[in-house]
């Protein structure tokens, strides 16, 4: 398991480096155990799940970032059946293993300075294989050479081609609320 994680981590880093075009790498911060949770408040049923295997990288010089989560790691559903539906019917996690968000922080702030900042991250949110450009507002706190990130945002299922069968329409809201907390440390 740990080995697997490391592979993913390396792959992720590789992807990140490739995507930044072999530029002079800046100072990288990372996390492998960020927490992500979501909840869907449908009229009939509250669905929620969370995972603490969010992997993230942040280049504090260029303000570039990349986060990803393996869909299979979400736990805490109401029932095993719900989890199965989540993975197989809605997110098709066999086909689309991961969800990711990568891009750049809009604000031109110095991420080496300690303090709390409200920032907006502009990037591509990929869920269910569908890319959507998003701006996600986050609160970050920099202290003790650690960067903690707290962020709330919503995801529209329709934005990512996640079909909602009519039968469960009352059970699944189109708007999913997601919350991310992660603490990044220097690599």
């Amino acid at each position, binding site marked *: 398991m740990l080995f697997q994680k490391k592979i993913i981590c390396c792959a992720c880093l590789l992807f990140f480096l490739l995507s930044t075009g072999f530029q002079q790498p800046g100072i990288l911060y990372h996390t492998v155990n960020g927490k992500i949770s979501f909840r869907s408040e449908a009229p009939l049923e509250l669905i929620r799940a969370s995972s603490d295997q969010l992997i993230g990288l942040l280049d504090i010089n260029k303000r570039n970032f990349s986060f990803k989560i393996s869909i299979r790691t979400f736990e805490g559903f109401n029932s095993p059946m719900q989890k199965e539906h989540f993975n197989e019917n809605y997110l098709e996690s066999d086909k689309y293993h991961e969800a990711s968000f990568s891009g750049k922080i*809009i604000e031109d702030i110095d991420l080496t300075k300690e303090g709390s900042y409200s920032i*907006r991250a502009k990037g591509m949110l990929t869920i269910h294989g569908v890319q959507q450009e998003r701006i996600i507002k986050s609160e970050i706190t920099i202290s003790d050479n650690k960067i903690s990130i707290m962020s709330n945002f919503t995801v529209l299922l329709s934005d990512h081609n996640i079909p909602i069968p009519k039968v469960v329409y009352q059970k699944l809201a189109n708007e999913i609320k997601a919350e991310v907390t992660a603490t990044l440390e220097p690599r």
Partner: protein
Amino acid sequence: MYSYSKLIFLFFLTAITISGFAQQPGAKLYELPAENGEQAKITLLCQDKEGYIFCGTTNGLFRFDGIDFYKTEQAADVPKEVTAICEIPNKEIWVGFSNGNIASLKNNKIQLLHFEEGFPKAPIKQIITDDKNIIWIATAGEGVYYYVNNRLYNINMDDGLTDDYIYDIHFVKNLGIVAATDRGINICNLQNSKKIIKTYSSKNGLKDNIVRCLYTTQNDLWIGMQDGGVSSYTYNLKENIAPPVWKYGQVNDVVATSQQVFVATEDNGLVIYDHDGNDNLSSLAQNNLQLKKVSCLLRDREGNVWAAGNNLLMRTSGSNVQAIYHFTKELSEDIHCLLLARDESLWFNTASGLKQLKKEGDVWKEKYYPVPDITDTEISGLYEDINSTIWIGTMGKGIFLLNGNTGKLTALKKDSLLQKGNILSITGKDNTVWIASLEGVIKADITNNNISFTDYTDIKSIGSKYVYHIFTDSKDRVWFATDGKGLTVMQNNQFTDMPRSREDNGSVVYKVAEDMYGNIWYITYDNGLIKYDGQKFTAYTASNGLSDMTITGLAATKDNVLVFHKNSVDVINTGNGHISYLNAEQGIQNINTDLNSYAANTNADVYFIAGNAIFKYHASEHVTFQPSILIDNVQLFLNDINAEQGHSFDHNENNLSFYYTGLFYSQPDKILYQYKLEGYDKDWINTKDRIKNFPKLSPGTYTFRVRVSLSNDFNNAQEAGFAFTIENPFWLKPWFIFFSFFSMGVLLFLIVRQREKRVNKWNKMEREKIQSQLETLRNQINPHFLFNSFNTLVSEIEEHPDRAVNYVEHLSDFYRSIVVHREKDLISLKEELNILEDYFFVQQKRYGRGLQIDIRISAKQALVFSIAPLALQLLIENAIKHNAVSGDAPVHIEIYIDEENYLVVHNNINKKLQPEKSSSMGLQNIQKRYALLSNKHVIIEQTEQYFTVKIPLIQNLL
């Protein structure tokens, strides 16, 4: 035959270059008031669809109605420094701030919007909407945002913008969103949520990469640059009008009309260019006034161009009216006539000759042609004939012809009139020239270089020798404006006197003109302006909106008729009848009142002289806009309420105030209102007030209507309304009235029924009473009783004669009691016991010890209770009647009152061998009477030994 006498003339030509810095006429300054000593600066201007001009300032948003500024209320968390305004199609206004926040103005209040993505953190420079209702937001530092489906997206340098600092954005149809940046122009388009960005910069020929502002007209995109001035591009980005050499520094904003470009500069005020639509910029005007720094511009829907800088707001007439040429005061006093030649050069007289003004590039070229022996009052009329020869009419010196190319001046010497005549006007069409004078009319026909003259001085044809003006209309009818005979018309050489033209409409006509619909307009000495549509004559007076009944001139161009007065030019749109005004507000005063001092061309331009300048009125630029009106606020008891149309007020919410504003920025002082509360006022009421209060309105349905006009003519005036209802109080509402009537009916019905019941009961009781009396009487007159009584009496007389008297006394007392009490419903128990005593005395004498009675009723009880008369007597009688009474077996009767206040009559039963025939009338009668008297029943109990009757006693009330 016609010999041209050559005059020795002085040909004197001066060509003077006039600097083009003409002041913008009628520029009016408004000062934004300071608030708590804090002087806000105006940063932007915007006019919403309702017509209000909004000023974004460093201290909030102000509404401007042409007279005053009103600060817009804003929530506590809304920042102060407004940097962008945009009217969003759903009728709300978005306001952008210098800190990146965005708020919306709704119901007169500004409140922050909420985006999940958060607000930008760079100043908002501009907000616009495109044809798909996507909202675009330009920021100074974070590129462009766009808002669609409640999400905010960003386009910045990472996406290909050349710079993230955006000064301005505009939407151009078929091109996209054009963003002006520090590094050229970017054109953004969205295709399937992909951002497509094209760049246009100095590499493509842009004069200056720093593009600070954009403006779009129908066909052109205008850009204002940091140092490169202003240039225009077609929508496929081909440079259309290149900027001239620019020396006015930083451009902050630009507005273009079809004739002019208005440029807001940082240090050089408002710079105004003329451009002829597709070629080079020509002349230049600059307005320096107090506005050295101009931050923003606005062209309102009336065509005015507004400029603002620091705390000042300036209105200019835009391209509607321009002062195109200024002259000295002395010269302006000498001018009597103005001619617009076909080459667009302007001719006017001076004290001793003619001047020609011709525009060459940026400047007016001036040429002077002296006319010998002419004094300052003598040149009265100018005309350019088909050969471009200028005809000069004089007072007393006839007519001269001037060849503009050679400067050759010729006097017409055909006859005395042409030589010495007092020429009033020279007009014409094609080859024909008409000369109107104090001595009559002469027609000149031009064929090649020959001129032939026809004399119309015969008074019979035209009707008068005094002719002010001759006008040839589009149907080649020739109209003569005469002094004394009104209008005369000549068609196919036939003269028609038009008596109707003078009957009601004045016999002195000064000038005739024709509008594009073929109506003939003319002005008269004492009857104002008349329109003749071929059928009828219509007079236009002050009630139609003319500013003054002293009319000095008339000109028609396209669908506008211009009526000149000393201090106002009234512009009548002949299509819709709207009148607008050019007056001191536009800087037009002391208008030259001479008959020939104005000129019109077919291009809808009219030139006239006012004060010390020649003005050009450009009709096609002048939007003849009606003043618009809106109801700003409705107050209840002088408190703001957010009432919608059709609001229902309670009956006690009956004090309403309406605040309304008429918007017409060109003539804010001329705005008049008429209001009418439909359902209250019968007629429209004129007012200049902008608030109307109605106290104590009675319940009903009302519509407050208010309309606005620049004159007393309110036909076709714009109107605003507020419909509302004041509810009846609940006691006047139909359901309540119905309910009231219904319950009253029910009550009445119940009362009647109750009464009927009582009457029935009473009747019944009456009947029972009579029955009872009858029964008692029958019993007492029963021969048995009498016979027995008499028998007893006889034996008493024999044995105890003294006691016999006593006996008879009791007997008679008994009968008297019956007679006395029979009519009554109730008697006291005491009285009944008295009767019983008499009766018992009589019976005891007969039965002796066989009849025993035991009355256990106290004197007090006897007074407290009442009983039906003779009821007790009847029961005792029954007891005696139905039982065998003997000394051996006595009948013992007990009478007492039980705890439930029943009078109990209890006796033992000694059965008779032969039962008495009984009708049972007695008991039944008592029962029925008590059923009516009391809600308790008479109780009859019978066992083997005892018979008991219980009569409910009735307690005396006192």
